[in-house]
């Protein structure tokens, strides 16, 4: 393990500031994730896992504390650069895949690159096809998400998350609505790419079996890190 991809110091998040329902959801977290690390984020419902993931994914800004991405303090970055960093350096996998229903599987996988480059190209299409091949869906490249099974949709979402070879993959319950076998497949895919590309992965899961197969397990309870241990 070499450089830290992300580093949190004293990170807090408060919702509804200034209203009677003001709530602090994250209470000063210190955490860092190294290149090539494959970590699980676990914890009871409402403990702040998704919130933390969204903040690390630069979708939300923290209320307090510091978040560094690849050594850069994100608090001082302008919106445009945050957006670009998010697009090029972070890959998301969500529980409900969140594919674009109007686009084919292939186009969905190409989308991050289309956004980054401004327009599609033959080279992008070739790369996207390779990725679909790698997740075993080459034959379904031109189907719309609605024509694919839940597991297939999640494979497309993983291919999409990997499209720009990001330095960080964030997955929020990627296997949450899949049966055990499919969940295992998806998990194995993520693990494989983590080994190949040496990217950092942070995976929220409720499945202790899957968590045990990660390098490290971070447990969040009520907005605090209860424990953060390497697996045996």
């Amino acid at each position, binding site marked *: 393990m070499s450089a830290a991809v992300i580093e949190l110091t004293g990170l807090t998040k408060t919702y509804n500031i200034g209203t009677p329902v003001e709530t602090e959801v994250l209470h000063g977290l210190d955490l860092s994730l190294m290149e090539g690390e494959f970590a699980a984020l676990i914890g009871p419902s409402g403990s702040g896992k998704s919130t933390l993931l969204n903040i690390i994914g630069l979708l939300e800004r923290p209320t307090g504390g510091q978040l560094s991405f690849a050594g850069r303090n994100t608090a001082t970055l302008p919106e445009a650069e945050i957006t670009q960093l998010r697009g090029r350096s972070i890959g998301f996998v969500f529980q409900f895949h969140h*594919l674009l229903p109007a686009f084919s599987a292939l186009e969905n996988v190409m989308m991050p690159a289309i956004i980054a480059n401004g327009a*599609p190209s033959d080279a992008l299409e070739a790369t996207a096809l390779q990725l679909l091949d790698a997740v075993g869906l080459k034959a379904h490249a031109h189907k719309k998400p609605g024509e694919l099974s839940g597991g297939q949709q999640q494979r497309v979402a993983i291919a999409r998350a990997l499209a720009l070879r990001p330095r960080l993959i964030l997955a929020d319950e990627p296997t949450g609505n899949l049966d055990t076998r499919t969940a295992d497949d998806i998990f194995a895919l993520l693990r494989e790419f983590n080994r190949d590309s040496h990217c950092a992965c942070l995976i929220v899961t409720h499945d202790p079996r899957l968590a045990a197969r990660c390098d490290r397990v971070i447990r969040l309870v009520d907005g605090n890190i209860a424990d953060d241990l390497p697996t045996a």
Partner: protein
Amino acid sequence: MKLRLPFAPLVALRFLREGRMQTLLILAGTAGGVAVIVFLTQLITQLQAQIVDRVLGSQAHVVIRPLEETNLRAIDDAAFATLIEPRAQRLRSIDQWENVARLAADMPGITAVSPMATGPAFALRGQASKSVALMGVDTTLYRRIVRMDEYMLAGRFAVEGPRAVIGTELAKDLGIGLEDKLRVMLPNGRDELLQVGGIFDIGNKDLNRRWVFVTLPLAQSLLDLPGGVSSLDLTVADIFEAQAIADRLKGATGLTVDSWMQTNAQLLAALRNQTVSNNLIRSFVVIIVALGIASVLVVSVVQKQKEIGILRAMGASRAMILQVFLIQGSLVGAVGSVIGSLLAFGLLQTFSAIYRNADGTPLFSAQLEPRFIVMAALVATSVGLASALIPARRAARMDPVQAIRS
């Protein structure tokens, strides 16, 4: 080669295609609006041009006359009536009319100048006697004021010696035809035997009954105007510049100068009112179309909330999302204007086949001028763009997390 659209148009098109029913509805609304505007504009432009054309078909755009003896007109007292009457009859010539004609001909915007000596006369044939206006003209010059050649029923519009050109109503009243003779008698006692060299129908019974064209020298000698003319008729390049040119001529010559716009002030006011009401209708249609596009896009933004969140999570900037919706608005406007123009063309075809003049010719032509299509396309695209502004800004400002969490 595959067509590779850039991000914003690519996503905009896909969103429009996905919301099929909505897209069809706003396209239909936009096309309908464009059709109404193009059809109305084309129709009113054509009809107004026809009316103006008809009015100007038998009169000069601008007429120069000698200064009126205003003192004679101003006095409206019975006691002076006997004193005034004999003088009011006297015909006056334009002072140095050749110089005035040259000045007018050199003035920019004036395309033709034609001198005329005119005065009242009686046309006699057997027992019949009709009051007419003797018009001494140079037919070559007068052709450029009133397109007499188009109105000729028999003979030619040309005069020489005692040959004259008369209207079809006068010919009927006197019971004469081409090459027949008629006598004209003037209040000053002079008379002349004329021969009919041409018969016209100018589309106005009164003028067909009154106008008798003869050569300028003949009219000058009959009217006691040796070498003089009673008016100068002018044609201008831009008919709606006529009044301005008349004012300029009045300033330069000090003579009485009237434009067709003055003599037809009521008609012009009516045309202007028609234009105003047409503009009102067009504005309302534009507003309704804009509201339609905007409301459908607002709904679409809400429906696409999740997709917008996903795109933002994948690195799409606010500006990119803004573009996606602005393009949707402009596309609807542009495509709507094409369909609308086709509809307008169909409407024009149908209505020009239905509405016909008394003589069976179409009331208006079915043609659609390209400039109206271009105008409609520009207006509709800008309206589409403008109506997409609010929905697009809403989309761009949307919180991606909110969309993804739900």
